[in-house]
């Protein structure tokens, strides 16, 4: 099979996989949104917005139109990733991928009436950008591991060990993104009466999970527990505690610091276990 045919085949395969994924993701968000809605609607869970149903005359037609747009969004997300594997200019393609995804997402959202306010649209784009930055950081760590393995495979000398603070830098940026920006973005899309996202999901789920796994990953990279990171995780919550919440949210400092510390300690334990076996 020639390279061109191979690429066309791969594009078609990705589009076929992406379409149902996009549909499933959008309808899952609607279903979860309906389940966690407060106050609960008595008329069951809706899979399209009221504005969308009104635009197309009835909910069934609206759901079918949304089905097509969601599928298109999923297909674009999946196929636009292919150039990453073909091109060497990764940063450029990340930018192109983000712009393409943001454009299709905005178009689909406008057609399906997903954004009741302009702020909702801007906030969701901000969340999308944050997801890209997080994915970039995670992938970069993977690429570093690949390069290190290939260097070893071709017999090149290993890179000199970098100081812990340099290894921790990407994690510190990530923590700053999650703890300084994410609560503001979530507040924009949050319910005005009961802020479920900023009041429950962020402090009790997103924040501890992020701090735990990033602490675990950092310890694995540094090969030792770096105590500055849990402190940093705790301190970074302070601006949002005082600017977005109030002093009753000070528990977030401990949640972040303890989760990062526990993640780090688990990393140390796993490392010791691996060394012993």
């Amino acid at each position, binding site marked *: 099979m020639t*390279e061109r045919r191979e690429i066309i085949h791969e594009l078609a395969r990705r589009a076929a996989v992406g379409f149902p994924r996009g549909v499933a993701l959008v309808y899952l968000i609607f279903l979860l949104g309906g389940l966690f809605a407060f106050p609960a609607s008595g008329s069951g869970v809706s899979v399209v917005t009221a504005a969308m149903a009104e635009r197309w005359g009835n909910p069934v037609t609206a759901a079918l139109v949304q089905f097509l747009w969601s599928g298109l969004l999923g297909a674009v997300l999946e196929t636009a990733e292919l150039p*990453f*594997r*073909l*091109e*060497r*200019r*990764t*940063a*450029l393609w*990340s930018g192109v991928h983000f712009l393409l995804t943001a454009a299709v997402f905005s178009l689909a959202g406008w057609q399906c009436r997903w954004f009741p306010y302009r702020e909702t649209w801007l906030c969701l784009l901000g969340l999308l950008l944050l997801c890209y930055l997080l994915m*970039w950081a995670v*992938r*970069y760590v993977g*690429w*570093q591991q*690949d*390069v290190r*393995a*290939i*260097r*070893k*495979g*071709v017999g*090149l000398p290993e890179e000199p060990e970098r100081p812990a603070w340099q290894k921790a830098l990407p994690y510190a940026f990530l923590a700053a993104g999650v703890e300084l920006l994410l609560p503001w973005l979530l507040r924009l899309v949050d319910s005005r009466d009961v802020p479920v996202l900023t009041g429950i999901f962020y402090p009790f789920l997103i924040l501890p999970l992020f701090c735990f796994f990033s602490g675990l990953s950092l310890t694995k990279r540094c090969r030792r527990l770096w105590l500055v990171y849990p402190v940093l995780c705790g301190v970074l919550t302070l601006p949002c505690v005082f600017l977005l919440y109030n002093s009753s949210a000070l528990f977030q400092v401990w949640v972040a610091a303890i989760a990062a510390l526990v993640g780090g300690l688990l990393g140390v334990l796993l490392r010791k276990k691996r060394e012993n076996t």
Partner: protein
Amino acid sequence: MKIELHIDPSLSGTEVTVRAPARTPEVDALLDRLAAGATPLLGFCPNGTAVPLDLDAVLRFYGEDKDVRAQTPEAVYTVRERLYELEQQLEGRRFVRISHSEIVNLRKVTALDLSLTGTIRMTLSGSVAVYVSRRYVKKMKEVLGL
């Protein structure tokens, strides 16, 4: 090195089996010599003169102006084979495809770096810089037995 010859009239062609306790540079060199003897690779100078290519000296094969070139530290030759044919011919040796238009000799790699923008830059002997497509990273790792 122990050499044995078995004559078997039932065989349709010549078969060579190399048995070794481990894959060493000497074994690789032997495989290269055997393969080069089976399919001599010719490089053409700009004046049309054909020279047999020493695969050990080749840094890379790459596509340029619809032709395929072979670069050695001293010169650049044009070869008749297409890149996908070379990829097949050079399989099992320390040559690996790193992008749509390039096959490199892994024995000639002097540096490998990842830039902040995610680009993997490979330096070959003589400061020849090439770039690795992410698509071929997995293949490279397979060739290196990683």
